């Protein structure tokens, strides 16, 4: 049996825009899982709020406009524009997991990557994180706590991916089709977020995307080849 830590997986996320309620559960879960600091009010007023996943809220239509939610997080583009521009190889592509990796200890903070990211999903630590004790007790030891001067972004909870692969390897089996769940996906109440290996036909994402006319990718025309598929908001067919 192939070593589960060596197999290639095409980690993919599916975001169902019809189901996303904008409740921010994914936002809070991501903070808890990945030690993402909450910035204080003056930092937020300076437009430096830091949330690896955010719910972009757009107003659409003539007044009264309707709100529409677009969860936006690192798209883990297959042709990530943030990768060629980093001068120190802190933003690199993982050949095995097909993810965009941010190497915290290598980042010198040129901030070029966020300029080239059309989704603006990379966050810079303008200051050290503020975790007044005993909030430090809550920090997840599986994830580095980043200091000032370092860029960070969603990792698809790579620590969970690694843990699941190691678990599978120690048990001598392959990964199950839906065994890896990032924090945001796990908590999303309407299951608007799905995650899995697109190359595994048994996974939920493969099934959700198969022949789905609603599937699209954001800013696809830029050629970034994102790994996140969005299912466009649906229309009701109830007749009245």
């Amino acid at each position, binding site marked *: 049996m192939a070593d589960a830590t060596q197999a290639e997986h095409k980690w993919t996320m599916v975001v169902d825009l019809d189901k996303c309620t904008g409740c921010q559960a994914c936002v809070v879960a991501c903070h808890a899982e990945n030690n993402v600091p909450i910035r204080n009010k003056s930092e937020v007023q300076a*437009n*430096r709020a830091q949330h690896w996943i955010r719910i972009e809220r757009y107003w659409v239509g003539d007044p009264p406009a309707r709100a529409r939610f677009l969860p936006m997080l690192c798209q883990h583009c297959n042709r990530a524009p943030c990768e060629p521009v980093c001068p*120190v190889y802190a933003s690199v592509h993982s050949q095995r997991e097909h993810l965009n990796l941010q190497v915290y200890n290598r980042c*010198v903070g040129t901030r070029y990557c966020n300029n080239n990211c*059309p989704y603006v999903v990379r966050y810079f*630590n*303008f200051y050290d994180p503020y975790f007044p004790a005993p909030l430090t007790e809550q920090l997840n030891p599986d994830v580095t706590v980043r200091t*000032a001067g370092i860029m960070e972004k969603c990792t698809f909870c790579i620590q969970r991916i690694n843990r699941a692969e190691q678990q599978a390897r120690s048990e001598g089996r392959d990964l199950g089709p839906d065994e890896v769940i990032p924090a945001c996906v796990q908590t999303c109440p309407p299951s608007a977020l799905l995650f899995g290996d697109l190359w595994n036909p048994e996974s939920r994402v493969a099934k959700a995307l198969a022949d789905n006319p609603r599937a699209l990718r954001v*800013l696809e025309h*830029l050629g970034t080849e994102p790994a996140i598929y969005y299912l466009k908001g649906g229309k009701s067919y109830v007749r009245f």
Partner: protein
Amino acid sequence: MSDSDIRAPQQRPSLGEMGLDQQAQLERERHLLVDARPGRELNAMVLEPMMRIGRAFWPAVGVLGFLVLTWWVTWGFQMWWNVGITGLNRVVMWSLYIANYVYLIGIAEAGTFIAAALRLLDIDWRRPISRIAELLTVFCIFASALFPLAHLGRTWKFYWLLPYPNERQLWPNFHSALIWDLTATLSYLATSTLFFYIDLIPDAALARDHVHGWRRTLNSWLALGWRGTERQWRLLKVAQLIFSIGILLIMPSVHTVVSYDFAMTIQPGWHSTVFGPYFVAGAIYSGVAAIIIAAILFQRLNHWSYFIRDEHLNGLGIFLLLTSLVWDYFFFQDFIVPWYGQVPTEKQVLLTMMAGHGQLAFWLMITANAIIPFFTLWWRRVRTSWPAMLAISILIQLGLLLERYIIVTIDLGVRELPFNWGLYQPRAAELIMSTGAVAFIVLGFVVFSKLIPFVVLYEVKEGQFLVQLKRIGKGLIRSKME
């Protein structure tokens, strides 16, 4: 400016009316290179301001030194508290530091151009101002190179951008425009320093031979034992030729590479193929204006109206007009193509610039860079009027700094997804660092003007030797020996 020039052309005596003496007098007034004076006199004119510490010197050094100190102290603060003390935010992550980097290294371009290109083209009005130009280049590159360092989130790790052997066996990423920047900036800094130094050697020897005290020691050290033998002169000429050609190859590539920081991204407003020549044009434009400012200031302060005359200002002014037109052309290209293309995000960039929160900067820039030069520099009266040239050049400096600022921060504030449009406002940290850098350059000039001769005397003397007044018929004309 002499009286005869003030009068209208039809009022000036024609050559036929003037006697030969009068003509010679006129020529000598107008043109430095036929107004030969004894070497002693020229030396004194150049070395005396170098030796004399006037009343204004120490206060100037004090003020400028203080501004430079605030620059370093602020940078120190930033290393401690980190980049949060600036006005950057999650959308606009590049701002005044990068704008200053581009702006200052742009100014440096023209110094090189004046010194090297005009030498190769054998244009004479560069002769007295060459050193000012080269020194501007050196100081501007040095100051500008510090900005990317200040811009880094973890400045103390800057050496990771250099390809040195390390145990992680990592090269820097040569795909990244920032590494190209690094290469270009460092090579430009090295070559222009050497270029400046080589040009300095004969004048340092001159100073060594004629001054006393610590300046003598300094200049004799700088002169490297220059004796002025024919062999040495020949070697110097060859070296100058090699460096001139070399640095003329490096110069446009440097600013093109700097423009690639923007053009090689997919950010709307930045992703434009015209950025290469556009930036080079803007660079030379701002540099010429800076040289004009320096030349005028030294002319006034050191009473060098002998060395820097109307013809030099006029030459610089024509050059300024030319570069202004070139800049206008490239700016128009960069503007009109997205305007016609109507790609939504690019259109939003233009709207933000012209009618949104960037409008003040944008219209100031257009006024300073395109409108004012166009409506003034055509006239010789303006070009030879030092207050006018000073004012126009300062406005152009402001305009080009605004142009860089707009490109970096306003464009970056308009991203593909409308939720992420953002505004940038500089804070004290960036403003202090910007003024500190400019103060550094000015301070460099002020201090160095007391250390080394600031007019390229050997070139002036060479020019005066080469250019003679020749009588042809009833007139005198200037003719130059090969």
